[in-house]
């Protein structure tokens, strides 16, 4: 059985490219995989697997291919408004954008879309994408859906997706010996990695860190990652008097990132609103056995309570975060051990690859198997005078014999 695999791949700088670079070799040990490339002919295969994220540059061609040929979709995040806007408005196909808005919200959605097109409303994918995910375009074309969290699974079901669905955790990177970076230090050293923007709650983190540092003057915060044009980190640091306490780094390559993370005493990865995404940084932090603080939202809420500290997003967020920093420093070894055990238990690459192989095999041949079994059941039922085989079919479904 052959799988056509659609995903951004390195050197593309995206989390999903990193994800596929990690997964592909393990998947190839279990199943025949051919990778598709943008602008090239679709590979011949029994089934296609589409990795979909929110970046139209990285994923636009993948959604194009999906709309040409249905297949299994890996929904890396639930909110796809930016992607859909990019492949509709961005390609001068405004009607397709309106269709997507209408699919989600009916006539009201279409009217909102018209407001955006006529510059009467702000760009929804920038201001409130979480309210208008537009994932229906992708769900409609999916013969099977792979998600990383119960949160996204539930949202897909709530949106009316009724097909096969598998929750497969994000795989963890195999851990080699990692030398902690020697050029950053703090007592303690707090780390925050990834693209820096409002969604990552950087203002709240800076405020909490400023308070925390009053009691721990040796503390330093490492902020590693690029920042958005409209997010001036340096100015914020100045205003909070944190210029000495914060180390800023732009994008850091993979190896350097591991080394920097290993040097940190506590890692922080906040998020709100969530787009239903998982975080490669979180998986890395857990794999390293570092105490970790996250926001209590979406996929992050599903992480085990003994392995991460979760901060509700409410009016006490900053105070809670400050307290959590102290707690994480104090109980770092227990949190770290629980984190490492959790990753080994739930996120092992081999288990994830096994789950992918199982999902793809069922997606490719499951319908034919179901049909064959149900046909024989129906024939036997008909022979004894039962033409409505619904009860028998339900028994088969209950027992897992057919879906």
């Amino acid at each position, binding site marked *: 059985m052959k799988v056509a695999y659609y995903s951004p791949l390195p050197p593309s700088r995206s989390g999903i490219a990193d994800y596929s670079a990690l997964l592909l070799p393990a998947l190839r040990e279990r199943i025949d995989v051919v990778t598709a490339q943008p602008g090239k002919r679709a590979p011949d295969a029994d089934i296609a697997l589409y990795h979909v994220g929110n970046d139209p540059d990285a994923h636009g061609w993948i959604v194009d291919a999906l709309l040409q040929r249905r297949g299994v979709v890996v929904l890396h995040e639930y909110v796809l408004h930016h992607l859909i806007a990019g492949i509709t408005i961005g390609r001068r196909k405004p009607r397709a954008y309106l269709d997507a808005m209408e699919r989600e919200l009916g006539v009201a959605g279409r009217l909102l879309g018209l407001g955006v097109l006529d510059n009467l409303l702000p760009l929804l994918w920038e201001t409130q994408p979480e309210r208008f995910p537009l994932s229906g375009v992708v769900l409609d074309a999916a013969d099977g859906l792979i998600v990383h969290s119960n949160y996204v699974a539930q949202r897909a079901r709530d949106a009316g997706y009724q097909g096969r669905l598998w929750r497969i955790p994000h795989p963890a990177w195999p851990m080699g010996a990692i030398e902690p970076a020697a050029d950053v230090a703090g007592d303690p050293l707090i780390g925050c990695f990834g693209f820096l923007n409002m969604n990552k709650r950087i203002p709240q983190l800076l405020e909490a860190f400023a308070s925390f540092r009053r009691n721990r003057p040796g503390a330093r915060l490492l902020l590693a990652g690029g920042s958005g044009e409209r997010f001036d980190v340096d100015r914020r640091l100045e205003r909070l008097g944190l210029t000495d306490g914060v180390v800023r780094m732009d994008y850091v390559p993979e190896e350097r990132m591991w080394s920097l993370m290993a040097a940190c005493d506590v890692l922080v990865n906040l998020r709100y609103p969530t787009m239903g995404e998982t975080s490669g940084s979180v998986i890395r932090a857990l794999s390293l056995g570092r105490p970790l603080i996250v926001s209590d939202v979406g996929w992050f809420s599903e992480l085990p309570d003994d392995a991460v500290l979760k901060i509700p997003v409410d009016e006490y967020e900053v105070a809670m975060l400050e307290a959590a920093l102290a707690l994480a420093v104090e109980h770092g070894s227990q949190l770290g051990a629980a984190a490492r055990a959790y990753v080994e238990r739930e996120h092992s690459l081999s288990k994830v690859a096994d789950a992918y192989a*199982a999902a793809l095999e069922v997606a490719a041949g499951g319908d034919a198997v179901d049909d064959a079994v149900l046909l024989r059941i129906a024939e036997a039922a008909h022979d004894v005078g039962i033409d409505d085989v619904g009860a028998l079919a339900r028994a088969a479904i209950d027992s897992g014999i057919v879906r």
Partner: protein
Amino acid sequence: MRIAVCAPQVPFVRGGAELMADDLVRALRDRDHEAELVTMPFTWYPGTRVLDQAFLWRLVDLTESDGRPIDRVIATKFPAYCVRHPNKVAWVLHQFRQAYDYDRTELGQFSESPEDRATRRAVERLDGVALGEARRVFATSRNVADRLRRFNDIEAELLPHPPQTLDYRTAEQEGYVLSVNRLDRAKRIDLLIEAARSEPGLRVVIAGEGPDRERLERLASGLDGRVTFSGRVDDATLADLYARSLAVYYAPVDEDFGMVPYEAFLSAKPVLTTHDAGGPLEVVHDRETGLVVAPGAAPLAEACAYLGSHADEAKAWGLAGKSIAERVTWDACVDALLS
């Protein structure tokens, strides 16, 4: 207690699994339980047929019979353990190995077609449902338990079963190596015949029937009658064959359990097996209860020659095995299954 013992039946085939189910019913009755064997024919091919068979078991209602409740169901093999019952205990002798460790080997049955791959996955999913709903899951060997953990994430308790009831005894050994097994390729009886070809002093007695008999007989031709086929033998003859043997050969590919080592041990005979035999290695320990060698004709020939020329050691190993086999009793099994 009213207990239904559920086991599939391959028409016209009788082996260890069938004996085990019969013996379990007998053991339960001996302990004053009402016990009945419930069985259905099992055909696992072609293609998706294996799922039909599971579905049949799923439709069987064993919650009561003749107006009286059935208190417990004990199921031993796929697909019998797909039966539904609130007090189901699975005592797993075999899963459907074609969907697991046999897959993509010469012993497998599923091709690379999407339909075959999905059928294999359906068996896996079905095992998860059927065994997941059992109140307890026992495995007859470590090999079976490991497979349940590896493929289905199910933790099974280890509970080996006693061998069939025979008039086990020990007589003076007459120098032959005995094979007791169904004659099919997975049992690797051909290796023993090849060993006889390279070891002129080796005599072999092969008891059992099966689809591989004709090929094995061809393989044994030209060995001056040193390899004899006894076919299916009655209980008395089997006990006698064990009693007079030098050692017993048992080396299937990664076998799940196999009663033969226990039967050999109860006759105080050492067992000759191979590193990759699976379940038997849980009781056949090299130079303690038998010999464990590489799966090839030459190492087996050498091992047979060693046993022939070291009769005292062979006898001592057989006696050591006997003390292991005597610890596996029906009392212990019934207690565990009904606890």
